[in-house]
């Protein structure tokens, strides 16, 4: 178990001090994939780097399985680091070494005898799907393949924890998904704890069990991923969730909504949020059947899979001459436990 207790970190810079992390309290359970999401400069890297002693807290403590990382030095710290793998946004492979030699690198550091290294390296290369590319140099690999080497390398010393610092941020969407699937697979197969930091909600939704939202060094929201997606509380969380749940860009939807508002001045625009099993219920058609005097028009909708089930949102326009029917539609939707949000008309 990883625990951050009242952790703050300030950097001394020429212009004074930067409070990169403020009063962070976090508990990361074993065997789970824990995501930390935040915008650039929020302090994500600073937090994750405290886990392997690349950075030390100014105040507070960071412990892993009751060992206080923030107090370790020299040999003890190096030994602890062997148990923690890390992957990076820019892969950080040694270009002078082949794929095989890069994966063998942490084993050399841990002074594993040469004979044992070979078998292990080949097994890891196979695990990440790079069999046959052992003798390639990093310059001969694509970004996704480089990250696979990075992942194989990070697993070499059988770590208990895998840290991922924006590991997919330099990759295209397709490759991102492949790498995320690999991480998920490794988490299941090897049962290690994974800490993922990212600015993409997509990454959180796809592989994380729990998420913490970081804003200007503070954790403003945390919990199981589905809960946070369903009921984002803070404005920043809503922005992250929207970034993910609207397929077209947010601007497109706003534009369509304002057009429709103009076209149908008496219509009511509602955003419906579905999750879990409801995403499979025929809610819209039952509304149409139940309220014959109401016209429904669908503006936009989408559905996403998370590790815990489906998640969707739908923008609809409800038009009726009878204002009461519109209210009834709203309350009917609420009895179906669908989340509703009425989009207000701008004056």
């Amino acid at each position, binding site marked *: 178990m990883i625990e951050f207790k009242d952790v703050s970190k300030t950097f001394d810079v020429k212009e004074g001090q930067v409070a990169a992390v403020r009063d962070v309290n976090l508990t990361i359970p074993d065997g789970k994939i824990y995501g930390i999401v935040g915008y650039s400069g929020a302090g994500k890297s600073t937090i994750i780097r405290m886990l*392997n002693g*690349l950075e030390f807290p100014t105040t507070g403590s960071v412990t892993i399985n009751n060992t206080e990382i923030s107090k370790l030095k020299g040999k003890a*710290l*190096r*030994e*602890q*680091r*062997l148990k*923690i793998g*890390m992957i*990076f946004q*820019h892969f*950080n*492979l*040694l*270009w*002078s*070494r082949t794929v095989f030699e890069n994966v063998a*690198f*942490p084993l*050399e*550091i*841990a002074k594993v005898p040469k004979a044992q290294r070979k078998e292990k390296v080949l097994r890891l290369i196979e695990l990440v799907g790079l069999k046959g590319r052992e003798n390639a*140099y*990093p*310059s001969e690999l694509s970004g996704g393949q480089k990250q696979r080497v990075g992942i194989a390398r990070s697993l070499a*010393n059988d770590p208990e924890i895998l840290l991922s610092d924006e590991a997919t941020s330099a990759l295209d969407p397709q490759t991102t998904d492949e790498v995320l699937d690999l991480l998920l697979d490794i988490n299941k197969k090897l049962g290690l704890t994974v800490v993922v930091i990212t600015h993409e909600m997509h990454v959180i939704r796809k592989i994380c069990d729990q998420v913490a939202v970081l804003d200007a060094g503070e954790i403003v929201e945390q919990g199981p991923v589905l809960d946070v997606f369903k009921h984002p509380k803070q404005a920043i969380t809503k922005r992250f969730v929207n970034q993910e749940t609207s397929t077209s860009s947010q601007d497109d939807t706003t534009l369509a909504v304002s057009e429709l508002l103009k076209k149908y001045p008496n219509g009511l625009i509602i955003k419906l949020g579905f999750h879990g099993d409801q995403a499979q219920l025929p809610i819209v058609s039952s509304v149409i059947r139940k309220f014959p005097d109401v016209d429904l028009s669908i503006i936009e909708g989408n559905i996403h899979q998370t590790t815990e089930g489906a998640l969707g949102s739908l923008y609809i326009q409800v038009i009726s001459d009878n204002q009461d029917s519109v209210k009834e539609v709203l309350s009917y939707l609420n009895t179906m436990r669908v989340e509703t949000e009425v989009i207000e008309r701008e004056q």
Partner: protein
Amino acid sequence: MNNNGFASYFQLSNVDWPKMWLATWETVWMTLVSIIVVAILGALLGLLLFETSNSKSAGARALNWIVAAFVNIFRSIPFIILIVLLLPATQAVMGTIIGPKAALPSLIISAAPFYARLVEIAFHEIDHGVVEAAQSMGATKGQIIFKVLLPESMPALVSGITVTAISLIGYTAMAGAIGAGGLGNLAYLDGFQASNNAVTLVATVIIVLVVFVCQFAGDIVVKRIDKR
């Protein structure tokens, strides 16, 4: 014998070949021995400069300042003055101030600081993320130096050696003019002072060839080890 005309350059019969080959060997020997010492000394100094350059401890910063001052001072002394300056020290260390051996101290002291700078720059050009990745795996300082810094900067270190070796060849010729032996010495004594232009020309051609071979070998090695 016409010693003044243009044709005098090509009177190859005036060239004492055994003496020419001996001088060539002396030049190559001086360059080789000094480049080996310069490579080791320069790498150590460069590493020292690199490791102390962004350290926060006051001791390291002071050390960096001292090493940097030493490097800058010896890099800016013109070679011909450095030889004269070092004559007493050379006499004390090598027991003589003439011949190829006597040239070594000044060759090394002039080239090592130059190479140290090149080494420092080469280390600074390594992506810091790679060093950090090694740290995050629990690497020691020694492992980082031998498994990351040196191999990752090897092409730059080798091309730095090539550049340094070529300027050392030039220095050996200059040292030759005041008695260090080698092709420079031959061109000066047997060529210039004896008005034997053919000797000067042949010595020049050989020096140019040595430089070319050096550059060519350096380029080939860099090409082979650079996998970027």
